[in-house]
């Protein structure tokens, strides 16, 4: 059965800390891995990763994929209280229906002042 596992499930840090969120997966016909940020309600897209070893970066956030070891990490440097959110990892598969992403349970990040 295809699955996506995120760790840790929750994390509390202080402003300025650097955090690493983990996402491992076991899926057939892997196509891409996506990261979303969910604050109040709607998840918003962060990154899509398809190739191993190529870092995607956006400001203080970065992510990389390892297709051999079947995982991805999301790094956030110099955390701010506005980074507090649930971070969702999802995997898309070839042959899967469009939009039928498999989501992990998410990592709840709390950044204290």
């Amino acid at each position: 059965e295809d699955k996506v596992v995120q760790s840790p499930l929750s994390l509390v840090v202080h402003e300025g800390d650097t955090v690493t969120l983990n996402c491992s997966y076991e899926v057939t016909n892997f196509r891409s891995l996506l990261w979303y940020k969910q604050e109040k309600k709607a998840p918003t897209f962060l990154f899509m990763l398809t190739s191993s070893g190529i870092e995607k970066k956006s400001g203080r956030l970065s992510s990389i994929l390892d297709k051999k070891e079947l995982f991805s990490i999301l790094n956030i440097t110099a955390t701010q209280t506005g980074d507090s959110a649930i971070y969702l990892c999802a995997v898309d598969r070839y042959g899967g229906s469009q939009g039928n992403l498999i989501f992990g349970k998410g990592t709840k990040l709390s950044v204290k002042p």
Partner: protein
Amino acid sequence: DAGITQSPRYKITETGRQVTLMCHQTWSHSYMFWYRQDLGHGLRLIYYSAAADITDKGEVPDGYVVSRSKTENFPLTLESATRSQTSVYFCASTDGGNEKLFFGSGTQLSVL
């Protein structure tokens, strides 16, 4: 700049009642989706639609019905609500690329 909107934001109903959750998008996206989000399960796909009049089941379709008579609307109906359908429901849309999956703000449904 409406984007994708869901209504209602909150809904309380009783078991056995029929409930319809609305989803409307203004981008003319071909694909629309309904997910539910539950503690311990994450987001799970209920139904999706590739175009008007084309719908298909996702991972957890039982107890739900969808229709898509117009590209911009994708209502989700619980024909006879059960307590296990208490959840937060998200509608999403895309023009074809999963990296541009846009989510609505969600509907929090409680079935008593």
